[in-house]
């Protein structure tokens, strides 16, 4: 184990996941010669998360498929992988060097530091939150625990109608469980997609038999009256509808203005109500933090030497032509990869601005959602819908220019918009005629890009 007098690693990457792994890989591709330590708190080899709520949960892919790189790869590339060490303190010098101290007491001296610490699941604080069977889905241990329980369960409640909740609910339903999905807000997928897409998903999931209740107020998790002291969850007490569905954090409501409280049986309650960026280390180091670790367009934190990448970072909007000064924190694989590349340049002393077209996917039942661009600030939408072929897309515009699209089972639309955005082309919809062409599923979007 590294100690005080051990030689410092050239670069210590804290967080061995999507962005940490990519940072190490990109640095080697760019010719970074110093030793790299890729350190994480999890007791697993670095793995990809997206399948945890999808293919892996359904047993379609095995554990090995999630592993990013073979052990030999890291050896060959002079990267030391450290598992199972949670860093709790960082002592840093003004030149960028320092020492990271783990909970175990182990110390990891470094010349440069990268924070790729990601985000953690937001907890739902209601009575019964500690009961066995109340689970989250952020990492492999969560997923393993969930899977171990699923076999015996007949009824599962999923709390949260965001991507994780919808993906997991679809997966669990496919596995033959009775699934009820409770969403606090008035619609699905909160701010990530527009109204039309949210409605499409609501209809699509309901027509596939998923029981979704909007405007749900969770009052408590009900313990089972078991002989071992009632430690396991047996249901969720909820009030649905009535009052204002919008506003307030999940679980806050008392249901006073709704219908009478109901207990929905559940041996498993999966909570997916968003994430909180891991900013504690950055705060302790005195770095600027504001919904994530504040970085510039080169992934540099406010001390000018530490890089912060991926889910944990709050950065300038990378979309070319986006409003000056607009900042954003993105939670996606694409961002983790692209942001890590920019950070790698930064560590090599090259100043490449982070610019790109963010994209995202989500698989729910037989619905493949692909999102290109960022729809924030849109002032016009055009819906393209082909019910016969089960395709649905929404294009978002700001001041007459296309800025994003949500595409369901429509890869061609997704690609057309992604390519148009990358080439800074428009798919005009500013006249009734142009909008009609965009809305016509018989017209290929690609042919409308100018």
């Amino acid at each position, binding site marked *: 184990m590294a100690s005080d007098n051990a030689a410092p690693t050239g670069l210590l990457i804290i967080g061995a996941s999507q962005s940490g792994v990519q940072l190490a*890989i990109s640095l080697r*591709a760019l010719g970074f010669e110093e030793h790299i330590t890729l350190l994480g708190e999890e007791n697993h080899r670095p793995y*990809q998360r*997206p*399948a945890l709520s*999808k*293919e892996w949960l359904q047993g379609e*892919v095995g554990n*090995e*498929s*999630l*592993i*990013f*790189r*073979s052990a*030999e*790869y890291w050896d*060959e*590339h002079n990267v030391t992988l450290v598992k199972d060490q949670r860093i709790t303190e960082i002592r840093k010098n003004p030149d960028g060097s320092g020492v990271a101290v783990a909970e175990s007491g182990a110390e990891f001296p470094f010349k440069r530091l990268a924070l790729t610490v990601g985000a953690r699941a937001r907890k739902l604080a209601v009575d019964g939150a500690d009961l066995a069977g109340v689970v989250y889905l952020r990492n492999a241990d969560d997923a393993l625990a969930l899977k171990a329980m699923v076999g015996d369960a007949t009824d599962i409640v999923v709390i949260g109608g965001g991507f994780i909740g919808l993906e997991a609910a679809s997966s669990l339903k496919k596995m033959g469980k009775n699934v009820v999905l409770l969403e606090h807000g008035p619609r699905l997928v909160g701010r990530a997609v527009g109204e039309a897409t949210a409605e499409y998903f609501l209809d699509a999931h309901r027509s596939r038999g998923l029981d979704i209740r909007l405007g749900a107020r969770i009052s408590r998790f009900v313990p089972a009256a078991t002989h071992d002291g009632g430690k396991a969850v047996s249901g969720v007490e909820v009030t649905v509808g009535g009052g204002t569905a919008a506003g307030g954090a999940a679980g806050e409501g008392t249901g006073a203005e709704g219908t009478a409280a109901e207990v929905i049986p559940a041996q498993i309650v999966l909570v997916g109500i968003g994430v909180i960026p891991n900013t504690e280390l950055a705060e302790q180091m005195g770095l600027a933090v504001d919904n994530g670790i504040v970085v510039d367009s080169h992934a540099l934190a406010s001390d000018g030497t530490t890089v912060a990448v991926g889910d944990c970072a709050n950065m300038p909007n990378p979309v070319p032509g986006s409003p000056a000064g607009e900042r954003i924190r993105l939670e996606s*694989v*694409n961002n983790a*990869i692209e942001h890590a590349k920019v950070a790698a340049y930064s560590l090599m002393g090259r100043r490449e601005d982070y610019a790109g077209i963010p*994209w995202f*996917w989500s*698989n729910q039942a037989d619905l*493949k959602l*692909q999102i290109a661009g960022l729809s924030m600030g849109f002032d016009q939408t055009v819906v393209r819908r082909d019910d016969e072929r089960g395709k649905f897309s929404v294009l978002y515009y700001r001041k007459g220019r296309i800025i994003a699209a949500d595409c369901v*089972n429509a*890869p*061609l639309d*997704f*690609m057309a918009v*992604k*390519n148009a955005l990358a080439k800074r082309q428009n798919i005009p919809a500013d006249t009734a005629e142009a909008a009609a062409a965009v809305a016509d599923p018989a017209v290929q979007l690609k042919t409308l890009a100018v």
Partner: protein
Amino acid sequence: MTTTVHYTDAEGTVRDIEGRPGDSVMETAVRNGVPGIVAECGGSLSCATCHVFVRDDCLSELPPIEPMEDEMLYGTAVDREENSRLSCQLKLTEGMDLYVTTPETQV
């Protein structure tokens, strides 16, 4: 019987990787750090960054292209050819000896 994938990159460098039946051509490449395959979505058929050209005489060994893969192939960074496939959809079978070429870029 060994199962081997021969990856040729755009510059002509060949890497022969022994694979495990059941793994995909994409997984085998990524785990061993074969450059030229990005595979952002990890095999979820969502990114088209695992595009390969399959040597013609190997094409018949492969499963047919499903409609979703077909559509995705129109979005590859380097234009699709007759022998284009998404490597995450190609599962290795026992004894397979597959020759693929990776495109100049995936993004």
